[in-house]
Structures are given as C-alpha cells and as structure tokens.
C-alpha cells in the first residue's frame, strides 16, 4: 500500500484535511493508509492536537504567543514622537 500511496502523500492529505474538506476519494485513500500505518495515524492526531491548542489560545482572547517580550523604551519613545508629529498636522 505504502508503495502506491506514500506516507509523504498521506501526511499531505492529513494536513489538508485541516484546511478544506477532503473529497470522498481523498478521505478513503487516507483512511486506507492510516489503517495500516501507525506513524501516519499519529501524525494526523498530532497536527490536529497542535491546531486545537492554538485555536483554543486564540479563542481565549490572546491572539499572540505568550511572551514577556515588550517594546523597548527607545522604540516606545520613537513611536510616541512620531505620533506627536503626526497629530500636530491636520489630516489631509
């Protein structure tokens, strides 16, 4: 089976399944492959898990990776100054 339908191809379909509904034929092909291939079964489950974790985080109102990074003082002041320049000029 895997000679006809490679793991590479199966992983591609498993990924596309997260982006658009697969055709009946694609679904059947993927299922036949994963029935015989535990690696691709794991792959499909894992990319789905990653996708789910990201979406949950986004839905909890944090549309960015958790990070302690922040604008440094110089950048903040630069932006502030630029905004001040701009707000003193009436919009065109």
């Amino acid at each position: 089976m895997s000679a006809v339908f490679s793991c590479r191809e199966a992983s591609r379909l498993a990924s596309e399944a997260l982006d658009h509904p697969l055709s009946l034929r694609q679904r059947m092909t993927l299922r036949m492959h994963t029935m015989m291939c535990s690696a691709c079964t794991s792959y499909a489950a894992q990319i789905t898990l990653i996708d789910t974790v990201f979406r949950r985080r986004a839905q909890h109102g944090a549309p960015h990776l958790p990070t302690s990074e922040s604008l440094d003082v110089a950048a903040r002041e630069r932006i502030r100054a630029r905004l001040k320049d701009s707000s003193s000029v009436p919009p065109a």
Partner: protein
Amino acid sequence: MLSVPTRCRLVARIDIMSGQSLPGHAEGLLMEPQSARSPKPNPDRWVDAYADTLFRYALTRLRRRQDAEDAVQETLLAALQGHREFRGDSAELTWLIAILRNKVVDRIRIASREIMVDPSDSTIDSMDDWCGATDRWLHAPKPWSGDPSKLVEDGEFWDQIRKCIAGLPERQAQVFALRTFDELEVEEICKQTGLTTTNLWVLLHRARTRLRACLEGSWFAPESTP
C-alpha cells in the same frame, strides 16, 4: 476573537429599548472613560495601554523586532488618521488589532512576491522528515499523550512552542500564524498574501510537519521502546 464586548451590546440594546438618547440617561452604564466616541484621539494613551499587546501580536507573526516595531508604528499612525472612521461599535483594542492585521498581511504580501514557493521543490523540506525518494518517514511519528485543555494553560509548553516556531522558515511561520491564530480561511489568506492555494497548503503542511517533529523531540517524550 473579534466579538463585540458585552458592554457595547448592552449599551446598544438599552438605547433601542428606551428610545432615548444615551447621554445623561444611561450615563451610569457608559463607564469606559475613554469613550469610543471621544472626539479627540489620545495616541499617548494608545502607546501606554496597547503598544505591548500590539507589539506581541506583530512579533508572533513577523518575528523580527524591527519589523514588529514598524508595524505597530504604522498601525497607530493609521489609527490617528482614521480615527473619525472608528465608530465605536467595537472595543478600541479590537479596532487597533484589525488595522495591525492588515499591516502585517501587507508585509507578508510584499515578502511573498520576493520568495516564490515551488511545491515540487522537495529540497525545501526538512531532510529530517523524509527518507529520500522512498517518501517514508525517516523518524516515524510516535504516539503522544496530551490534553489540549491542559496544554493551552501550560506556560512551559508555550515556551517550547515559541522555540519551535522560531526554527520554522519565515514564510511557514507567517501563514501558520494567520491560519491558526487569526483563524483565517485558506481563501482569505490566499487573497491577502497572493499565494496560490496549492502553495499555501504546501507551506502549512511543512510548517505542521516541522512543528510536530520539534515538539516530539523536545516536549512529548517519545514512548520508550523495550
């Protein structure tokens, strides 16, 4: 993610039900001091209140500090110019993030013109994933155990994800963020970035494959084989 805050809905409903103009009558409910309809934008306050959130949003997608800083500046300048268009029907931060998202996508689109993706070019693939021409896994994925609802709360897990994303090629990381964080549909990403659907699928497949491999190596301890 971009839902209208309850407060705004509440005010709007009261307005309709009472049939009265809001000022005075519903003053107690309009608690937000920086009223959305404030005639004068206050860019200094935007910087204080929102700059870090906007910066993190941009940094997640653009990854380079300089690019993220520039995108934040462009966003606040555009907000200043377009402030009269802000109708107050969404929270101010939501409005700013919507502008920023356009700025980020603009940058990705410009960069997309410079780097074309050839889906048949297998040399871009991580050599670790595939065993040459056989198209079989070189390191076959092993089963994981993980509860999404627990992982999403786990700071160390996200630290690891951040490291893994930092290792992705730029374009893969960008489209992955648009797809998963912004929850944009494939059609929308293609329209905005100028990528073809096939190219986008290829990029997403590669991003997921690399991210998966990275997490397996660093977080999900592979099940030991006797």
